[in-house]
């Protein structure tokens, strides 16, 4: 989103890659091969998105809206195929019974902290460092602020865009692998609201749809906020029906405060 891009399809890709992985595993494909194939499927989906958006110049919203439908459909089709093959009846939308060795990748705790957290923290730190210090990644700020000017200064805009979409889908595939391992099952409906939640988190964390702004740490805190809301409602014994109300209100408040600060502080800063 810093580069001005956008991906609506990630929840569907999450469902589809998770189902793909689980299908491979129950077909007795070795675990390492299955994991690598799943990551490759994520890379392939990202390349497909990136090439069409960067080279054919298609609006990312529309293209990933197509992907939103397409990959959710594929997730359910995989569920159907595998349930016919394995159980002998149709309309089962989740796959379980995965090998134990696979379930240990992200299932289990270390000093009382779930393994999956130890995957999350390095990823956040690495991407934060890349976006603050690495020249290639910092060029995303230029592209997001002014694409034409970036092109003229010699930034390889198309390549970076393709890299961005590939990274997103690859990370989605990795998330799907970890979740499938932690839950010991994959379900075709998983990640239904994921894209909108992730986008809300990025915006709460200071990103904009127009591009040129945002930080990994901010987005991470946005995710934390959303999860605290969800968890807090449970702890307070309130109905989870209120969950979306608060997320929506926070999102709205974040952009309104941002707008207010810009309107009042920026002229002051310019005058002084």
């Amino acid at each position: 989103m810093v580069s001005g891009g956008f991906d609506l399809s990630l929840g569907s890709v999450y469902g589809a890659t998770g189902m793909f992985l689980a299908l491979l595993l129950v077909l007795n494909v070795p675990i390492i091969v299955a994991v690598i194939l799943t990551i490759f499927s994520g890379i392939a989906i990202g390349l497909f998105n990136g090439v069409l958006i960067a080279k054919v110049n298609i609006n990312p919203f529309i293209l990933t809206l197509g992907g939103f439908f397409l990959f959710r459909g594929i997730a359910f089709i995989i569920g159907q195929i595998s349930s016919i093959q394995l159980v002998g009846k149709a309309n089962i939308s989740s796959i379980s019974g995965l090998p134990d060795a696979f379930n240990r990748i992200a299932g289990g705790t270390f000093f009382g902290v779930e393994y999956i957290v130890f995957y999350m923290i390095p990823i956040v730190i690495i991407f934060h460092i890349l976006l603050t210090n690495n020249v290639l990644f910092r060029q995303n700020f230029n592209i997001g602020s002014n694409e034409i000017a970036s092109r003229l200064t010699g930034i390889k805009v198309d390549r970076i865009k393709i890299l961005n979409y590939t990274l997103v889908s690859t990370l989605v595939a990795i998330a799907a692998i970890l979740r499938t391992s932690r839950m010991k099952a994959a379900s075709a409906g998983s990640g239904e609201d994921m894209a909108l939640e992730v986008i809300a988190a990025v915006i709460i964390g200071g990103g904009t749809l127009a591009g040129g702004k945002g930080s990994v740490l901010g987005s991470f805190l946005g995710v934390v906020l959303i999860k605290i809301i969800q968890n807090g409602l449970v702890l307070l014994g309130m109905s989870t029906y209120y969950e979306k109300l608060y997320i929506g209100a926070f999102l709205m408040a974040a952009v309104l405060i941002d707008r207010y600060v810009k309107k009042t502080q920026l002229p002051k800063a310019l005058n002084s």
Partner: protein
Amino acid sequence: MNFIKKIFRIREFNLFLIVLIIIITLTIRSPFFATKANMFGILSSMSTETIIAGAMTILFISGGFDLSVGSTLGLCAMIVVVLIKAGTPIPLAVVLTILIGIIIGSIMGFVISYIKINPFIVTLSGFLIIRSLHLIISGGTSIGNLQKPFSLIARFKILNVPMYIIFAFFSILVFDALLRNNVFFRNNYNLGGDENSASLLGINVRKLKLFNYALTSAMASIAGIFLASKFNNANIEGSPDTAFQVITAVILGGASLKGGRGSVTGTLFGLCIMALIQNALVLFNLNILWNKIAIGLVLIIVVVLDSTMNRKRLNN
């Protein structure tokens, strides 16, 4: 020759050809397609989206965008049912529900046009908040089984055609006529083409934008009332995919996210293509799960073709 070339450049004509080809193929391949029951099935399945799609097209032409229509539809279906259960006279309940739709749209339109916040973000927040309100009002269960007159709103038949189908197609024809002939509605093309020059032309840009959002939410609330009346029931799932389906039809119909382009006729053909794909899956006994794959593929193919053809034209 030139004439034929020109005609093929008209997007609506191409879409019409696609619809025609699908209809002819289905008529030949399946004996059940051209039956009266199946035709009514298709019209009925697309009626909810059709009611919203006309207003959404106008919104897209003006450069706007609304993600929240599915939530509004679900909320309003729930509100009208709750009001009637509480003893409100039916006409009053319907009017109140439409008013609530207008208020929802006006709030979002106000934030978008007067405070100038990106419509995607505003309607995304709207989508979340309205969805929550829907669940809270419902109390966690579907509500149904209302007295007879309420279900007549949608099911009342004129010449054997149920009211909700008549209303859907009547409303889309009205929007088409307004967008062609009415100055107020035609201003949306200027607004979507270039907002600054539209305001220099003397168009009240902010009011027009606010009106568009209010109109879209009002149509969503009407669709909700019809849906509740059709099934005599308001459920708690709502219809999360409605916004995406309507937007897909509008984009298939030739509108662009940047605004300034699109037509209600095109959108109607877009809706037809989506309904026919769904119907074909049912007729050939394919799993309905293929529906999402088909819609996704059609959307991607159409925009890729669009983009490459535009580029060729520009190069020429």
